[in-house]
């Protein structure tokens, strides 16, 4: 393209239109540069030729031929063949919620792989678990999947899958309830303690699994009332179902916090945890001796750190969601003489590694047999809360499949799930649903953190509660016992 130092250039551009170019020199700090101003003059128009029509003629013939395309023959039961059952889940494999949580589904998959290898699946059907990364619905922060649960769920439905099992997250799973229902796909064992999964009339195919935050709150209330009667209690929780339901449970159980603050997760991440400090400062000025945290591990860390800085040491009561000792202590290692979480009381619905439940070595064995997803895991490795959780719901699914029998349809599976009580599960209490209750597990015991890798039961007494407005907490009479012989 010729450049004169000044004057007018006349050119035909890409469309065939005429371009007049005014070229003027200007002085910049780099030296002389030319500046151009274009004025376009339309002198020509274009025609679409008859070849375009010929192209469309071909298209039309394809139309006629293609209109006999019928719907593909659908398989009898979607996701089920004589040899395989395909299930799916959307998980935060990468992204903001992934650290720790990305082990959950992998642990369940380890159980499925083990059952496939050692028992040839269930009734000859091997379990295929398709995990789609939805980054907890949040883009950025290292997300490599599709940060949109609806998109990923669509992808699962297109496979098709028999059901979704263990998909994680309250807002993420709320957003696909209607989609899964309208397609008749069961939404099983949602990894969240929200009460949203307990709407049996509106969503008959939707099932929770873990005890709700509400139940947990009630059990905490019972503990606080008996151990610290009359103390000032403060509450900090997440600004969604998690914190709100937990607070409601606490209040229903008879403990009214002096100060209740809800934090927001994006704030937490944006300020690297500092957004929580003002709440802790507030608790200190109100002289709270007991602080209840319904927090994810990152927020637990922020709260403990803020308290350390302020020289504030209340009795901590932390939700099972954010109390895993290994995860929570990691940032403090080497910076403080002792793990700040030690002595905190939390809630657990799975047996701790300090007890002699037969499930602990079984889960360890199963995880060790999966070096692809758990490289370097040996019998001396720490079985953290995430792995135990995933393995436990994996076992629940396998047991439910077994109980349904060889003739597997969605209807028969759901019917079995609502009828059978699973009392040989890793969880402390049996897993039981009914046609009106889809919440899942309803009990556990209080544990205390003893080191940066382990917790032990406080009293060993297992409590149950429910998700209604009733704050009653009762001691569990029937606990789960042992491993089914066919699973060993």
């Amino acid at each position, binding site marked *: 393209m010729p450049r004169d130092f000044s004057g007018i250039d006349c050119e035909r551009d890409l469309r065939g239109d005429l371009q007049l170019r005014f070229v003027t020199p200007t*002085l*910049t*700090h*780099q*030296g002389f*540069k030319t500046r151009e101003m274009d004025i376009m003059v339309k002198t020509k128009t274009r025609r679409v030729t008859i070849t375009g029509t010929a192209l469309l003629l071909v298209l039309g013939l394809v139309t006629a031929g293609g209109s006999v395309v019928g719907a593909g023959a659908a398989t009898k039961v979607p996701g089920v063949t004589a040899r395989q059952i395909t299930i799916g889940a959307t998980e935060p494999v990468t992204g903001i919620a992934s*650290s720790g949580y990305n082990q959950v589904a992998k642990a369940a998959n380890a159980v499925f792989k083990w059952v496939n290898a050692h028992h040839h699946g269930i009734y000859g059907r091997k379990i295929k678990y398709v995990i789609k990364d939805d980054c907890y619905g949040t883009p950025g*922060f*290292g997300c490599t999947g599709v940060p949109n649960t609806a998109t990923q769920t669509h992808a699962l439905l297109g496979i098709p899958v028999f059901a979704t099992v263990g998909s994680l997250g309250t807002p993420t799973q709320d957003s696909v309830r209607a989609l899964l229902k309208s397609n008749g796909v069961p939404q099983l064992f949602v990894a969240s303690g929200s009460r949203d999964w307990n709407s049996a009339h509106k969503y008959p195919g939707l099932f929770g699994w873990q005890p709700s935050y509400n139940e947990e709150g009630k059990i905490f209330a019972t503990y606080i009332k008996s151990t610290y009667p009359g103390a000032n209690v403060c509450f900090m929780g997440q600004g969604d179902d998690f914190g709100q339901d937990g607070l409601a449970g606490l209040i229903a159980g008879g403990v009214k916090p002096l100060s209740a603050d809800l934090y*927001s997760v994006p*704030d937490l*991440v*944006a*300020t*690297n*945890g*500092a*957004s929580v400090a*003002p709440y802790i*400062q507030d608790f*200190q000025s109100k002289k709270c001796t007991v602080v209840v945290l319904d927090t994810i591990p*990152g927020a637990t*860390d*922020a709260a403990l*750190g*803020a308290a*350390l*800085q*302020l*020289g*504030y040491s209340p009795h901590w009561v932390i939700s099972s969601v954010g109390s895993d000792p290994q995860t929570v202590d*990691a*940032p*403090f*290692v*080497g*910076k403080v003489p002792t793990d700040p979480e030690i002595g905190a009381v939390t809630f657990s619905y799975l047996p701790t590694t300090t007890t002699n439940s037969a499930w602990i070595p079984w889960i360890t064995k199963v995880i060790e047999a999966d070096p692809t997803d758990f490289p370097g895991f040996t019998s001396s490795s720490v079985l953290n809360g995430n792995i135990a959780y995933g393995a436990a719901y994996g076992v629940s699914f396998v047991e439910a499949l077994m109980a349904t029998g060889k003739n597997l349809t969605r209807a028969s599976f759901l019917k079995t799930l609502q009828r059978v009580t699973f009392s040989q599960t890793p969880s402390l209490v049996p897993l039981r649903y009914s046609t009106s209750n889809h919440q899942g597990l309803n009990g556990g015991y209080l544990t205390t953190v003893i080191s940066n890798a382990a917790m032990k039961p406080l009293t060993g007494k297992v409590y149950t509660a429910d998700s209604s407005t009733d704050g009653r907490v009762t001691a569990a009479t029937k606990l789960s016992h042992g491993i089914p012989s066919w699973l060993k």
Partner: protein
Amino acid sequence: MDPFLTSRVVTDILGGLTNGVTYGLLALSLVLIWRSTGILNFAQGAMPMFATYLGFALLSYHFGYWPCVVACVIAALIIGGLTERLLVRRLYGKPEINPIVVMVGFLIVLEAVAAAIWSSTPRSLPSPFSSIHWQLAGKPFALSPFTVYEIVTALVVMLAVAALFRFTNLGLQLRASALAPEVSRLLGVRVGRLLTLGWMLSTAVGVITAILVSANFFSGLTPTVMDGIFAYGFIAAAIGGLESPVGAITAGVVLGVVNQFVIDFVNQNAVIIIALGILVVSLMVRPSGVFTKSSQRRV
């Protein structure tokens, strides 16, 4: 005296000062680049972050905190210089939005590469001073040894930069190259070299900020640790005027204190909203910044 020192207002002022000096430092580094090359560097937080990762990678070779700090500064100088030579050189004389888009892209790439190499899990860094606040008569005081170290370091850096510009020959040359490059060239000043030096200097100032911020007690060094600081640092620089270093620093400190008061008396969500509001108002009233002496209009 004690009740006064631990009162709400003083606590907020001191807490705000601690954050404010980091905003001021970042705003200063933004101003340095703007004045020397006329570019708004959106990667001004990410480049020091990357340098901090590089410097503290030496921790696994059992170097202590201070040698790592030196390594960080060296890494920052290298990154700043390379960026100017390879990336920014090609952008002089192009339309205004080109450098902005390129630096935004650079920001994304730096954060992604840092997370790819070192993962986005927060990395704990050793701290030379304790972060536990002092207690005055049983009530917590707003400062800890670490925050005092933060404030003092920031002030020292600001004074050093001021001294460099005002009292040294190099500083004079830097100012001349920014103001009148052709004339400087004619006078024998190596303008290109000084532009590179300007970038190196500003990245070094940024890395000091990053080191101070990453030794955060809560979660440490992550690829996105500088994002919040950049946002407030930019707002401070825009309010104070991208042309004025003193204005940027002052605005940064004031913004930090204002933020702390907003957190205390309003709520957390309101902080960035109010900061945005202040920015909009200040840009409407004085589009080129509160502290800028002449209101230039580029014709």
